[in-house]
């Protein structure tokens, strides 16, 4: 690596990615980092960003040191720090895979959380970002997320994705027979005559908003209308 490139700042659509040299000792890296932050600070103008460190495994402590430098020496408002993830690095850095980055089939959705267990009648869980439920949502249970919801189980209760008005959020589940499904401010309810029930329980389905209506279709590799701009 060229000596200027021990620390590289990279703006991505979901925030700021900082690539770090993996060979330098941390103290030297820290100096380079500080210098780079001071040099670049005029670009930042107190923008609100999510931060990702890449290229090097950082301990909690080391990460904290860098974040402190960044917030002191620049006007950045750090809203969220992504964990370092080596596989994640490969997707974005490895030259032979770099075409994936341009693919529309890959996108970043910010914060994703996981929930393990069944959401039972009377239980209501809310998430600020995206959520993956590893379990079922039973009748009378409610899952609400500001972004999308993925359920690795069957949905019989109420799910509300994009609870703060994001109609680009989606809901996907292994078995989809929700009592009520809401995306953004659009509400749809289960049909009174559930003659189509078998179709949506025997196959994974995805629901999303298209032309102001909630559409539900099997996850079969087509999904042509998904993520077309609303």
């Amino acid at each position: 690596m060229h000596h200027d490139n021990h620390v590289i700042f990279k703006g991505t659509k979901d925030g700021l990615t900082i690539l770090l040299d993996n060979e330098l000792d941390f103290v030297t890296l820290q100096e380079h980092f500080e210098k780079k932050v001071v040099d670049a600070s005029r670009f930042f103008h107190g923008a609100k960003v999510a931060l990702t460190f890449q290229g090097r495994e950082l301990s909690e402590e080391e990460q904290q040191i860098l974040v402190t430098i960044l917030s002191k020496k620049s006007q950045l408002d750090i809203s969220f720090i992504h964990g370092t993830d080596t596989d994640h690095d490969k997707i974005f850095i490895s030259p032979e895979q770099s075409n994936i980055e341009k693919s529309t089939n890959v996108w970043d959705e910010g914060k994703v959380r996981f929930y393990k267990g069944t959401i039972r009648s009377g239980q209501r869980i809310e998430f600020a970002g995206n959520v993956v439920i590893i379990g079922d949502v039973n009748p009378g249970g409610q899952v609400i997320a500001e972004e999308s919801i993925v359920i690795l189980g069957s949905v019989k209760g109420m799910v509300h994705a994009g609870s703060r008005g994001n109609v680009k959020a989606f809901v996907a589940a292994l078995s989809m027979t929700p009592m009520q499904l809401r995306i953004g401010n659009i509400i749809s309810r289960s049909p009174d005559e559930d003659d189509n029930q078998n179709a949506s329980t025997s196959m994974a389905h995805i629901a999303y908003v298209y032309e102001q209506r909630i559409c539900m279709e099997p996850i079969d590799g087509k999904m042509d209308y998904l993520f077309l701009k609303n």
Partner: protein
Amino acid sequence: MSEVIVITSGKGGVGKTTTTANLGTGLALAEKKVALIDADIGLRNLDVVMGLENRIVYDLVDVVEGHCRVRQALIKDKRYSGMFLLPAAQTRDKNAISPEQMQKLCETLKEDFDYILVDCPAGIEQGFKNAIAGADRAIVVTTPEVSAVRDADRIIGLLEANDLRNPKLLVNRVKADMVKRGDMMAIEDVMEILAVDIIGVVPDDDQIVVSSNRGEPAVTDPNSLAGQAYRNITKRIMGEEVPLLNLEEHQGFMQRLKKMFGLSV
């Protein structure tokens, strides 16, 4: 090691009291020392089902308020050695005791008994909170009806929130012929929704009504299929592995004969 088991359901009328009486009697028949607590203050009826109503002097509220000692309030069931009932007060309501008092009472009883079964009132309010306060395990009773299953689901959620993990499910009043015709939820459907371990399936049995009215739990009747189901559940509570009862065994002679000749469906 003694255990406090709460028998609960959410919905009323699914057979909590009958279950408590039968499992208690079953455990006593297996030579265990059993205490039954009726936590349904104000609507007591475990004493009636057990046929011990006329012997109540002190009750649960008297005990927690210190009007008597626990031993004075416990009614000994003379038919089965080692079985005692702590009846609920009829003139008070659920707010007469607190979860802390209930917990303390259960701890006291644990010193003298192998099993303490708590008959929980319907609902999710104070009475429910009291009943589960001292429990180590829970048995959730449901019937194969959508409303009962929904309430059972709610209860399981509340139990888990109160650190009573892995409650066991008892499906009561199953009518094998209706299930077969598709008119009643099958055990598999119930289990798919509730996703908890099943401790037993009890068939619908007219004899239960008769035995409840007489104050003799069905578990003592060797000819009753429901009694057999309760005997199996008793064994499972004690840690034995017993296969689930085949409810279709309960067929008339003619049906069995027809089946033999391949005439029956």
